[in-house]
């Protein structure tokens, strides 16, 4: 099955190409069904190809070469199929299939229905290119292509200026990260002479000194921070919520944004050689987790809450992979994919049912109207809050355990993680209560209704996964760990502290934090609106700062965008047009003015010229006679 692994990418790509040319003719819902089937088929192929890793513990991956691309730098189109790639593939295609199904219902009636599935399929193909690439160039290709799809999908409703601007912002901010990634790649090539994974990772210890490895790691971090929305490049993700909600679920929660985590895990040997880079990754992750969580507290847009929550959860994963807990990071990546996709799809269902209303202040009491959505979202809220035995508990706990075990700075990170867990539990519970309980605060004419079957079924499936996925990797049975181990045999993977006692203690603390957050939110937001509004006002300016996301966008605008544009204008209109071109035209003018002065000599009269001619002639003759020593 490994030989046919290219099908995993080819199927969704073929779906995209097919839908691009024939989608409009197929119409609704056939285009959506074809798009879904191509991803589902890709999932099936991926699953079949992953079987060897499941059956035979410790099975090694292999690299399948497709064709030469840029042989001069060791970059060919090749697929590295190992257990890490398999996990990612299954997450992407699995969650992708569910979201495709959901989209058939959600995008119902959109005039560009087929185009939406074209882009979604293209995205799946790109994301798979990213995780399956057998060399850095191919990963970079996937990296950029998912950026493109993200751009296309965020600005899918391009007639809305804010959507178009958000798409552009996402792409450009990502590009800033890519700049770092690219320089990292240059360093890799300069040191190894190739970009192929095969030629790099095994030779890391013999070739890289610690300084270079740290440099490469930090540059990769820049790239990862762009793609995974970490400080300081996270600003694009909240804006990306302008896209249709399934896009937010698929790209901006479950898959694309985790590419940074995947990158760090994939390049683990380099981070191992430069551990300080890893530590920086973890610190960035922790700061982002706390920072974004605090912003999420005060958001009133249902999707913005989830967006900042995603940023925060990605920070968690960064903590894990930064400290060497690659498997913990990937584990959280997986569980997060399930429950965050569920949350986004649930919010999509709410928005759909509320006629495109996104303001939570105008919701309330929806549980009765939308029971499936409400219950499944409730499950996801519990999961993200880290309540056992749901998936979020196991993965989050493992990350906190890794941080605790690291010691030193790790303890600080662990505390930050705990605080974040508490805040997360708070704002997620707040969201659930604001949306689903209390008095209805709907606008006039809005009649909430439960979404169609095509939307609720994926919710239920995801809810089941949210409940069950955690058991893939519990301290009792480390299935995922053993599955992934062959992919990380070059490095030493960090683990939570050994022993049941420590496990129980740490789990108790984190669960306590989760419960505390939920209790606080539940206490406030289960009561009438006036009470929680007074509660919010109690925070004063702090709440305003959170609600305004610390005005980071304005700060970037004032310090980077506006001066940048000024510089550009200065260069274009003053320096280039006036300076350089002015210099050129100045030379032209100088020549012309010399000409104007000397033109009086040109009388146009033959005899005047003749005088000059004869004078010259005589001068030559005299010179010949005098200096030439005779004729």
């Amino acid at each position, binding site marked *: 099955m490994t030989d046919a692994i290219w099908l995993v990418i080819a199927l969704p790509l073929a779906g995209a190409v097919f839908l691009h040319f024939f989608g409009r003719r197929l119409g609704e819902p056939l285009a959506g069904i074809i798009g879904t089937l191509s991803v589902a088929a890709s999932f099936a192929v991926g699953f079949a190809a992953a079987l060897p890793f499941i059956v035979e513990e410790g099975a090694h991956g292999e690299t399948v070469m497709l064709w030469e691309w840029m042989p001069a730098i060791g970059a060919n189109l090749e697929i590295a199929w190992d257990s890490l790639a398999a996990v990612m593939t299954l997450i992407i295609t699995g969650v992708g299939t569910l979201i495709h199904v959901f989209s058939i219902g959600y995008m119902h009636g959109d005039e560009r229905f087929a185009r939406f599935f074209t882009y979604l399929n293209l995205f799946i193909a790109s994301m798979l290119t990213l995780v399956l690439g057998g060399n850095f160039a191919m990963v970079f290709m996937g990296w950029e292509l998912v950026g493109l799809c993200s751009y296309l999908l965020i600005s899918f409703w391009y007639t809305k200026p804010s959507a178009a601007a958000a798409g552009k912002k996402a792409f450009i901010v990502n590009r800033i990260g890519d700049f770092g990634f690219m320089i990292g790649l240059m360093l890799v090539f300069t040191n190894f002479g190739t970009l192929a994974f095969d030629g790099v990772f095994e030779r890391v210890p013999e070739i890289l000194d610690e300084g270079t490895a740290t440099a490469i790691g930090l540059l990769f971090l820049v790239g990862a921070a762009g793609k995974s929305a970490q400080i300081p490049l996270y600003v694009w993700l909240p804006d990306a919520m302008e896209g249709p909600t399934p896009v937010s679920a698929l790209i901006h929660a479950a898959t694309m944004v985790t590419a940074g985590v995947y990158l760090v895990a994939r390049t683990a040997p380099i981070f191992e050689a430069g551990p300080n880079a890893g530590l920086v990754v973890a610190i960035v992750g922790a700061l982002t987790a706390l920072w974004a969580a605090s912003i999420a507290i005060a958001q009133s847009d249902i999707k913005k809450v989830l967006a900042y929550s995603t940023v925060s959860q990605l920070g968690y994963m960064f903590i894990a992979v930064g400290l060497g807990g690659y498997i913990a990071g990937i584990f959280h990546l997986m569980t997060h994919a399930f429950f965050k996709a569920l949350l986004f799809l649930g919010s999509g269902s709410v928005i759909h049912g509320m006629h495109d209303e996104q303001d939570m202040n105008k919701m309330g009491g929806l549980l009765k109207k939308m029971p499936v959505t409400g219950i499944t979202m409730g499950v996801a809220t519990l999961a993200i809050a880290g309540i056992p035995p749901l998936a979020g508990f196991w993965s989050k706990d493992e990350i906190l355990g890794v941080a605790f075990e690291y010691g030193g700075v790790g303890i600080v990170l662990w505390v930050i993680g705990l605080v974040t867990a508490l805040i997360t539990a708070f704002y997620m519970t707040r969201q659930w209560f604001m949306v689903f309980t209390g008095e209805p605060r709907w606008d006039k004419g809005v009649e909430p209704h439960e979404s169609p079957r095509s939307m609720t079924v994926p919710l239920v499936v995801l809810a089941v996964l949210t409940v069950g996925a955690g058991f893939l990797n519990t301290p009792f049975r480390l299935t995922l760990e053993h599955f992934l181990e062959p992919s990380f045999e070059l490095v030493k993977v960090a683990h939570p502290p050994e022993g049941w006692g420590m496990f129980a203690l740490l789990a108790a603390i984190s669960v306590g934090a989760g419960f505390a957050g939920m209790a606080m939110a539940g206490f406030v937001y289960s009561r009438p609106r006036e009470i929680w509004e007074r509660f919010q006002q109690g925070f004063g300016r702090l709440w305003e700062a959170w609600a305004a996301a610390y005005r980071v966008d304005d700060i970037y605008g004032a310090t980077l965008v506006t001066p940048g544009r000024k510089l550009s204008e200065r260069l274009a209109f003053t320096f280039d047009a006036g300076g350089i071109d002015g210099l050129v035209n100045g030379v032209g003018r100088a020549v012309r003015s010399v000409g104007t002065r000397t033109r009086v000599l040109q009388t146009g009269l033959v005899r005047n010229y003749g005088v000059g001619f*004869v004078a010259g002639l005589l001068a030559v003759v005299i010179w010949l006679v005098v200096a030439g020593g005779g004729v």
Partner: protein
Amino acid sequence: MIEVTAGWYLSLAAVLFSIGLLGILVRRNALIMFMCVELMLNAVNLTFVAAGRALGNLEGQVAVFFVLVVAAAEVVVGLAIIVAIFRRRESASVDELASLRG
């Protein structure tokens, strides 16, 4: 006994040439200027013949032959131009032909 050397002929040619040259500068009539040019050409021919004799070969005379032919061609075209200009300007004065004034 004064012998006539090639230098004599060359001197004569120089004088004729100079006269032609000055004529071009002082006369305004295109026809006369043309005649002055012919004068200069002939002065040169004389030097060819004299030099050819002094050097003892015929090439000088052959050169004269070619100069004659070219001069003839030049006169033909030049006179045609003068006639054409005269038709348009009713004058043969070169001073009126100043279109090239800068």
